[in-house]
Structure formats: structure tokens, C-alpha cells
């Protein structure tokens, strides 16, 4: 097991390296940061000098090598936009994004699972039909529209919730949390709903489809024939067998929530990494972009690892296979 985890973490290094390589190959096309850095009165020679100092006139292979060299020492450089260390910028933004993603994911699971199970078990009830129709809306509305609608209703018309920002936060060491203040929690509601909505509807539909599939299988019929109570059949046997794909999808979706909460964060001015990256892109802030992409690649690898480990927890067959396989190996 430990060996498995270590092997996966080693793979993550390869993944991050290739992401960084592709990223640097693409940076040639994002534009020239020099004109964003200097003022309009700066002369040509000074512009060239700065370009040279920052190494922007080197071929991308060289820039990539330099980035990897520095990154190996934990040095991601200085943001062109803020003149501050990139690692510090990301550390500042990370808590905001992780808290938001976590709440959105929990929300999606807490609502998505029960609704999915209910609609799977009661296919023809009117409540199921209603929920499914509602979930269609959730899956088809683009995020930016959901954001704007929620802001319009809850911030502008009703005035209940803030339309932007994170409210006040409490610092716990370097981590800032919005969980401990009332306006911090209030500020979480709208962005979390927006961000979780798509995942929620996805989970509803996935769980329902899987439930329907499993309920048709022979072992459920046998279980019924044995006279097991419905509760045990539904939750002990059926649900457990639907969970593998649900975990996979939820895991991958969590990764994309963290990495690509860009739209939600932009609209709600949520001071997280999505906002950071979108500003970095428009500024051609290469140090921030490269560090961010590498970090996101790392997140995906870790989340996938956790997903794989969860498989073992829910699916006993995998545990036996692996035990057998490693037995052969030794």
C-alpha cells in the first residue's frame, strides 16, 4: 500500500513536469508582459533590458529549465503583476479556494446523494419527476448566469447576502478562514451554491442511473427472494455498488472545482486562486501562471490517489485482487 502511494507520488512529479513543459511552450503565445509592467513613457532600451533581465528573450526550453531549477528549490519567482513572491500569493489565495470548493462539494454530495437515491428508488413518483426537472435546469444553466441570477435575487432585490467578497476572515496561522464569522459564512452561501450546483445535478443523475442499473441485477433479485428488508437491499447492497463511479466522478469534479472555479470566483470577486489565475492570464504574468498550473496538476494527482484508495474501502473485490496480485509478486 505504502509502495503504491509512493509510486503514485513519483508519477505526480512526471505529470507536473510535463504540465510545466507544455505550459512554457504555450507561454510564447500569451503575449508580452513587458508592456504591462512598464509605464507608457518607458524607452525601448529599458524595455529590452527588462526583457533580458527577466529572461523573456530566451528560448522556451531555457526558460523551462530555469523554472524547473528554481522550482526544485521551492522558488517560484516574483509575480510581474504584484512584485511579490508567487508562493506567497498562492498561499494567501489557497484557503479561500479550498474552503469554497469544500463547501460546494459537501453541498453537492449532501443533496445529490439522497435525491439521487430517492429518484432511483421511486422512479415514477411526481416528486422524482419534479427533482429531475429541476436538476435539468441546474445542469443546463451556465455558471455565470447562475451567479448573476443569485446576486440579483439575494443581494440586490432581497439584500440578504453579500454580492461579492469573502466577508471577514479569521487568521489561524497562515490559513485564513471564513467559517468563524457570520458574514464570512454569509459570503460563502451564494458562491458555494453556484459552484456546487453543476456537481450536484451530475451526482443526482449519476446515482439515479446507477441505482436503476443495480436494482435490475440478479443479486438484488436474489436478495429480495431471500426476504431481506428493503432498507438493507437498497442501502447495504444496491447503494454500495453504485458508489464506485460516483466516487470517481466526485473526485475528478472536486479537482475541477478547485482548479477551475474561475468563473464563480471572478463573478463573486472571491479572493481565491481562480481569480488570481484569470488576472495573471490577462497580464501575461508567467511566474504565477506556471506555478499555478503545476500546483493544479499536483492536486489532480493527489485527488486521483485518494479516489483510488477509496475504491479499496468500498469495493472488497479490489482488495482481494491486490492482495492476490502482490502475493504473486512476492
Amino acid at each position, binding site marked *: 500500500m505504502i509502495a503504491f502511494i509512493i509510486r503514485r507520488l513519483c508519477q505526480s512529479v512526471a505529470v507536473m513536469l510535463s504540465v510545466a513543459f507544455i505550459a512554457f511552450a504555450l507561454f510564447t503565445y500569451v503575449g*508580452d508582459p513587458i508592456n504591462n509592467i512598464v*509605464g507608457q*513613457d518607458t524607452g*525601448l532600451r529599458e524595455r529590452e533590458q527588462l526583457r533580458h*533581465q527577466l529572461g523573456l528573450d530566451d528560448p522556451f526550453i531555457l526558460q523551462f529549465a530555469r523554472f524547473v531549477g528554481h522550482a526544485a528549490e521551492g522558488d517560484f519567482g516574483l509575480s510581474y503583476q504584484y512584485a511579490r513572491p508567487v508562493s506567497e500569493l498562492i498561499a494567501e489565495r489557497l484557503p479561500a479556494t479550498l474552503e469554497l470548493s469544500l463547501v460546494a462539494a459537501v453541498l453537492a454530495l449532501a443533496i445529490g446523494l439522497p435525491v439521487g437515491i430517492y429518484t432511483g428508488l421511486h422512479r415514477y413518483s411526481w416528486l422524482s419527476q419534479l427533482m429531475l426537472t429541476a436538476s435539468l435546469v441546474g445542469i443546463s444553466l451556465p455558471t455565470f448566469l447562475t451567479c448573476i441570477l443569485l446576486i440579483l435575487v439575494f443581494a440586490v432585490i432581497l439584500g440578504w447576502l453579500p454580492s461579492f467578497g469573502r466577508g471577514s476572515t479569521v487568521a489561524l496561522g497562515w490559513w485564513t478562514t471564513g467559517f468563524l464569522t457570520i458574514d464570512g459564512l454569509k459570503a460563502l452561501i451564494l458562491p458555494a451554491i453556484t459552484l456546487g450546483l453543476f456537481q450536484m445535478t451530475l451526482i443526482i443523475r449519476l446515482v439515479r442511473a446507477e441505482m436503476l442499473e443495480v436494482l435490475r441485477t440478479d443479486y438484488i433479485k436474489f436478495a429480495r427472494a431471500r426476504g431481506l428488508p428493503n432498507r438493507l437491499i437498497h442501502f447495504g447492497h444496491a447503494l454500495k455498488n453504485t458508489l464506485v463511479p460516483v466516487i470517481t466522478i466526485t473526485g475528478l469534479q472536486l479537482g475541477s472545482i478547485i482548479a477551475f472555479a474561475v468563473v464563480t470566483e471572478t463573478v463573486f470577486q472571491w479572493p481565491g486562486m481562480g481569480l488570481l489565475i484569470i488576472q495573471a492570464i490577462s497580464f501575461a504574468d508567467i511566474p504565477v501562471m506556471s506555478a499555478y498550473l503545476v500546483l493544479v496538476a499536483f492536486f489532480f494527482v493527489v485527488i486521483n490517489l485518494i479516489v483510488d484508495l477509496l475504491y479499496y474501502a468500498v469495493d472488497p473485490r479490489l482488495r482481494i485482487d491486490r492482495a492476490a496480485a502482490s502475493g504473486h509478486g512476492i
Partner: protein
Amino acid sequence: MHRGLAAALAAALVAFAPLAGAKTFRFANDGDVNSMDPYARNETFLLTFVGNIYEPLVGRDKQLKAAPMLATSWSQTSPEVWRFKLRQGVKFHDGTPFTDDDVLFSFDRVRMDGSNLKAVVATVKRVSKIDDYTVDMTTDGPDPILPEELTNWYIMSKSWTEKNNAVKPADLTKNEDFYASRHANGTGPFMLKDREPEVKTTLVNNPNWWGKPEHNLTEVVFTHIGNDATRVAALLSGEIDMMYTVPPQDIERIRHTPHLKIYEGPELRTIFLGMDQARDELIDSNVKGKNPFKDVRVRKAFYLAIDEKAIKDKVMRGSATITALMVAPGVNGFDKSLNQRYPYDPAAAKKLLVEAGYPNGFEVGMDCPTDRYINDEAICQAVVAMLSKIGVKVNLLAQTRSKYFAKILGPGYNTSFYLLGWTPTTYDAHNALFNLIASRSASAGTGLFNVGGYSNKRVDELTRLIQIETDPEKRQAEISEAMKIHKEEFGHIPLHQQTVVWAARDNIELVQLADNFFPLRYVRVK
């Protein structure tokens, strides 16, 4: 449960209830202040925000005329020497007194590598101490408008920067956290209380400010809200008191919302089109072996074919001031008598093209930014449509500004036809002549932004004369002559000045300036 929540809410309300008499002003902008270092970036928003904390020697009043700030008076003791008398009894926010050592230090710092305001003191050779509150600035040749050029150069404290290892501006090539980009210590009416980049920046009133405050604010909270719709929503819902930039499509809506007010005024920025007149063959055209833009008739045809009034009414929704000059009213040297556009006349334009030898028009590529000026891409699309009526097929390449500027600016100047905007940072026409209109010359430093390579010897000569002419009347005559030549040769096609649009609640009093600066010292909350 319910009661618990109510109790918690009540407690929160009590905790956040403002103190009696405390006036908090909350505002938002679509850009963030990227640094607290006043030399970090030559960018309007950074300079205007940091300008509440730091102060220049010479500032600007509500009419944008030069006004005493840390210097109480100035005069030219000889054509090449400006003498500044400094204000006495001024203290920095940390309590240390302001002296001429700080001026000398700031002069050194603003010229260091990493500073992006080097240009504001470009003509100054040397600053010397006369006594504790008098300094002389020796310029490289006569500089009649030096005080005007210094208005964005803020004075920093020598002892504070030395103590905090911030003597040099931040160096982007080194990975180190930089004190002065997160902290500030100026002499201005507001002090930096708290800065959470990207979240909010809080200023408080400086009770020891040397001036008599016009504002009545105790605290100012600035938030960056990048998304247009959210910024408008935050104002509508009352979470902020004032915001800019106002998206053009929301102006009318805000105007008709009770308790909200729109402030509108012409900006100093001029938006114009330029044409490559330097190359012998355009890089992006189907005309081979010659450059149609070298022919003044073609440039005139382009000018006449563009219906600026339609652009103003339809694209800008009325929020623009039509212009015939490359500088705006309010810029020193602006000549009203020259500000008459040649009327829109597509038939004459078509005829000029025939005379120039292009009866069937031609094809040309156009470069345009998508995120730099108000409705920049839409303006270009309108221009494309208008030129198609005289048979010119324009292939539009609209890109984000990082890509756009990298393509069109020097040393490559890789464009045939482009849209650009310009605000003279010195508020003087010389700056536009020097950067946009004078011939490109690396040795003279002129024409860096003369992307089309317009060139006229007399204009170059006038630009040199204007730089050193100390007699205001003669100087104005020279500026007008240069502007007239440029206008008649259709060196560029000026379009309009953008409009500065701000929105605020109606209990806020503020002063809107044409350079889009927003000094908090004029803000009152009723």
C-alpha cells in the same frame, strides 16, 4: 435555534455598528492596486490610490492646474534651474519630519532600476540642497513645464525606507517579499491601515495632516471587483458607496435608480487610428510593391470614410467627445480653433481613393485591443464596416492587450493599421507630440509610440522648440502649428475622448477629475 441565530445576529450588529460620527466610505474599482510602492507602476489607478497616502511636491487642483503640495512655491531661477520651496512642519505618518533629504532621496529612488516612473524626472539632471526647505532642480536644457511633469512623483521617507530595507524599488528578477509594496508611509491625508491584496485595502484619516481637510471621512475601504455585473450589483445593493469603471450598458439603469447618481465628464485620453506610413510595402495588405498610406489622399479617404458621430452615438452610447486633435481639452496646448473634424463624406473618400489609384479599394489588416479602452473592439468593428463602404476590405485582428501591444509597439511596429489611446502624462501637448507624432528616433527618444511612423521635419523641429520654449504665448503658437500640420497631413485619425463615468450613492459628495484620478480628500459622506 431561531432565537440563538437572532441573538448572534444582534451581537454581530452591535459589534459592527459604526461609532457615532465615524464616516466610512466604501468604494470599488475594476482594477486592483497592485502595489503600495508609488514607483511600482505608471498606471492611473495605482497613482491615484497611492496618492491619498503619499504626496508630490506639486499636485493638481480640481481644475487639474498645478497646485502646491509638499512644495509651497516654485520658480525658475535660470532657464535650466527650478527652485522649490518646501512646506515646513510636515510629518510623515510615522511621525518623522519631512525635509529636503527626503526629496533628494526620492529623486534617487525614482531613477533606480525597478522604478517605472523614471520618465517623470527624465529632464532633471540633478537635485541640490540650498537650505533645509529649499531645493534646486537642474534640468538638461530648459524645461518650462517641469512642475507639471512632477505631479505623479510622490515623496517617500528616507529614514522609513532605509529602516525597512526598501531603499530600492522591487526587483522582479529576485524572489523576495518587498516591504514597500505592502506598507506605506507618506505625508498625505490618509494613512494605510490594513492591506489584504485582492480582498480589501483600508485607509484611515490622518489627524496630523498639514492641510485643512475638505473630506469628512474617518475610514475608507477599497475593494477590487473585477466583474462588471458584480460591481454594479454591489452598488445597487448598498454594499459600496461608489464605484468606477461603470460599464456603458449600465449607465442608464444606474441613473434611473433612486439614491444613485452618475458622474460623467470627458477624459483626457484620446482614442485614435494610425496607419503605417514608414514601410515601402505594408506587411499586411494585398497592395504589393508600394504603401498606399504614404499617399496623403488615401489617409484622407480613410478619415472621411469614418463616421465618428455614429461611433459616438451607437458604439459609445453617447459617452464620448468627438475630437479632431490628438490631445483633449484640459491638456495644456489644446487649441480649440483646430478642433473641427473634417466632415464625414464617404463619396469624397471614394473619389480620393480613385484618384490615388485604388478604384476598387484594397485589403489591409487592422490591429485592435479587446480589453484596453472602452469598447475598443466594437469601435474597430464599426471602422471595418465603414471602410467597406468605400471598397476597403479591413481584416480585423482583435486581441487581448498583452498580445496586441507586443505586436504593434516597437521595435517591431508590426502593424499596418491600428487603434490606440493616449493620455499625456504631463498634461501637456508636448508629451503627445514627443511620443506619438514626432519622427521615430532612438537617439532623440522621440516617437516611441509613433507606431505608424508619421514623419514631418517641421513638426520635429517644433517639438524640439516646444520642449525648451519658456514664453507661454510663443510656445502655444508652436504647438498649434505642429498640430495643424499633423491634422492637414492626416498623420493619424483622431476619433474621440472617452468619458469618465463614475457612480455613487446620493449621500456622497465627490469631485470628478478629467484625468480619471479620484482624490479621496474631496469626498464627503452626508
